[in-house]
């Protein structure tokens, strides 16, 4: 009997377990450089190759902490519902979620965890361990409920292509890409350098995911020095969409989608309210600057509606413009268990967002569209 999907959550974060890397990487080869939890200043922190990972957060999970503020400082206090398949499925059941897409936590929420000044060999092994961990602990346990995405060793396009092939064989349904490669001293994604990766992804039908700011480090405008954590998180989260929108504008004008017309791009934790802006502005500038003479034959908004997806979790205004965005292009997420997450109140937020939206469109957004993207 086919599994019946009710709601598919296309962006949640899976907390890596303490032995994710230590049990899968060679200690003889890497020694203490392997990602692991260490005790520092009375609290536990993830370290990799002598560097603190993920801003020092042991487990970013404000959304499941009662006061949404006091994060666990020791692994014993990390709720198992964020790192075990069983615990996660129970949390999903509470919100009526049939299946969820898993993004990293410690490995970098946008896939950037192993990008900074990393030894390319170490990067390859860390990424492989993460991808195998997801496959073994989630995909193998409940393949119809967990949709896994691979990280890639982006320091070289050859290594990225090789890992993508491995990931596709291991059940992964897409991969994470950095949105502003220049910030990592890599060629821009408009550069032909990445073409082998786009080509392989297109052949394997693996959608490319930009998660939120996708590792971009700019936006230092955020908050003033000395601002509180709560204020920093609020400004940072609100500002992240200013970056998401530029990632997609950059993509639409880059020519990549023209060269790879069957490649799919997904904006996760993207929000959708900015999409009409990007489409109207890109169409306007495309026409004004006569870009159709420069190889961009299709109008940016048409390209978007053929090759891109975006998602939302709390918006209403953007949903009102779904005809313009393309109702087939919209996905839904909870961002479990992150600070902005709507868990466990998905019903309440969906009621707000779907005010006046016909059943048919709701079903497309919650079920049909994600089934198409992830071939469920």
């Amino acid at each position: 009997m086919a599994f019946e999907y009710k709601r598919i959550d296309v962006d949640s974060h899976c907390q890596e377990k303490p032995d994710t890397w230590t049990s899968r990487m060679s200690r003889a080869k890497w020694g203490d450089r392997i990602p692991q939890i260490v005790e520092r200043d009375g609290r536990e922190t993830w370290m990799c190759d002598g560097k603190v990972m993920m801003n020092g957060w042991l487990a970013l999970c404000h959304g499941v902490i009662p006061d949404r503020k006091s994060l666990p400082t020791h692994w014993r206090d990390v709720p198992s519902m964020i790192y075990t398949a069983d615990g996660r499925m129970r949390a999903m059941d509470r919100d009526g979620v049939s299946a969820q897409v898993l993004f990293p936590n410690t490995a970098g929420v946008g896939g950037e965890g192993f990008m900074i000044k990393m030894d390319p060999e170490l990067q390859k092994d860390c990424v492989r361990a993460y991808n195998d961990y997801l496959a073994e602990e989630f995909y193998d346990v409940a393949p119809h409920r967990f949709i896994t995405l691979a990280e890639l060793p982006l320091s070289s396009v050859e290594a990225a292509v090789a890992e993508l092939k491995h990931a596709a064989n291991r059940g992964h349904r897409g991969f994470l890409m950095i949105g502003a490669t220049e910030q990592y001293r890599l060629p821009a994604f408009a550069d032909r350098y990445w073409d082998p990766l786009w080509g392989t992804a297109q052949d394997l039908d693996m959608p490319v995911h930009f998660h939120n700011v996708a590792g971009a480090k700019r936006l230092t405008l955020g908050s003033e020095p000395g601002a509180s954590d709560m204020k920093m998180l609020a400004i940072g989260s609100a500002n992240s969409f200013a970056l998401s929108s530029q990632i997609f504008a950059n993509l639409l004008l880059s020519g990549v989608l023209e060269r790879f017309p069957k490649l799919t791009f997904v904006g996760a934790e993207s929000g959708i309210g900015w999409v009409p802006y990007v489409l109207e502005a890109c169409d306007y500038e495309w026409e004004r600057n006569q870009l159709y003479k420069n190889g961009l034959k299709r109008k940016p908004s048409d390209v978007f509606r053929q090759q891109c997806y975006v998602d939302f979790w709390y918006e209403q205004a953007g949903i009102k413009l779904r005809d313009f965005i393309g109702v087939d292009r919209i996905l839904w997420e909870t961002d479990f268990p992150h600070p902005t997450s709507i868990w466990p109140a998905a019903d309440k937020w969906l009621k707000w967002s779907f005010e006046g939206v016909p059943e048919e469109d709701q079903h497309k957004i919650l079920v049909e569209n994600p089934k198409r993207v992830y071939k469920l």
Partner: protein
Amino acid sequence: MRFQAAAAFLTAAGLEGDAVGLRFGVISVDDHVVEPPDLWTRCMSRAKWGGRIPHVAAQADGAERWVIEGQVRTGSALAATGALSKDRGSEPQTWSEVPKSAYDPQARLTAMDSDGIDCSVLYPSAAGGSGEVIGAIKDLELQIECARTYNDWIIDVWAASSTRFVPQAILPAGSIEAAVAEARRAVGSGHKGVIMPAQPSQINPAAPHLYKPDWDPLWTTIQELDVPVCFHAGSAPSVMFEISPAYDAAGARAFDNVRQSAGSAALINGMVLSGILYRFPKLWPVFPGSAIDYVPFALEALDHQWERQRLAENEGLTQRPSEIFHRQCYVTTWREKVGLRNRNYVGPDRILWQSEFPRSTSTYPESERMIENNFAEVPAQERELILWRNAARLYKLSI
């Protein structure tokens, strides 16, 4: 007045008056004057400043470029006048190629007539779209004098030519004290708004982060002067993606025009969540070049984060961010049609129209056609608010 002769001539020609009669019902709240090469050199003391005065100099390749505080500005145009060129992109390389409507008030009025624009709120070009080039000058005294010279020129040449021009002053943003003093002086001399770089600390290390309470004296002053404070899109590099070298010139221009407005969302977020607008309830920030399409979403995101991070309890921000926006902020539209469908989330009284003459993104010379197209489904009353009434009220124009 240094430009008295010109002003007197224009008055004699009957081109000056108090009230503006609207012929088209359109006020553009964001256009740029192009500063002539001798703007600063003719007014500032060569004996005192020598070659440090902003001036134009021919480079080895024959192109003329602005030289400011001794630095050749190779990255920016001599005159950003893309809307006036055939391919909407090419920019003049020498002053002799710059179209007159960029720098001459009379020629500008003719262009406005042909495009159906009654009034135009003025922003700089060489000084930086938000005065950030002048604000970045390290020598504070030089910075102050350059800002004053620009501001005087706007009053003496542009405002004196016609009440259809709405003059705005740039501020020496490298120093809070100097910015306060110049805001007072400029508004006293007739300026109707002040222009600030969105993040002075990024352009001038002497300036504190804009969201720190250090700037409160400036907000106090501007609130007291009761003029809008304008943060033009594109002046805070850190809210924008870099333009990839893989782009050709047209692609780079297109992406630049899209990224600038996208960055404005961050400026709005910052002005609200920093608490500044909570503390200064009669400060009127304008975000020219912001676009309105994503504003409904920006407000939803602000309210969502305010609630999720419990900023009422944690930070004392007791009202919802969207309420603060609706009470105080202004955003602008020019290329949007779909965005106007969601105008009620923004508030029709919060939206201003702009042309962005003479930059490449400008609606010129098709403003009338674009307005007809974009506003086709907007009721007359709201259309009037957006096209001129909001601007007339904000800038206290007698119409």
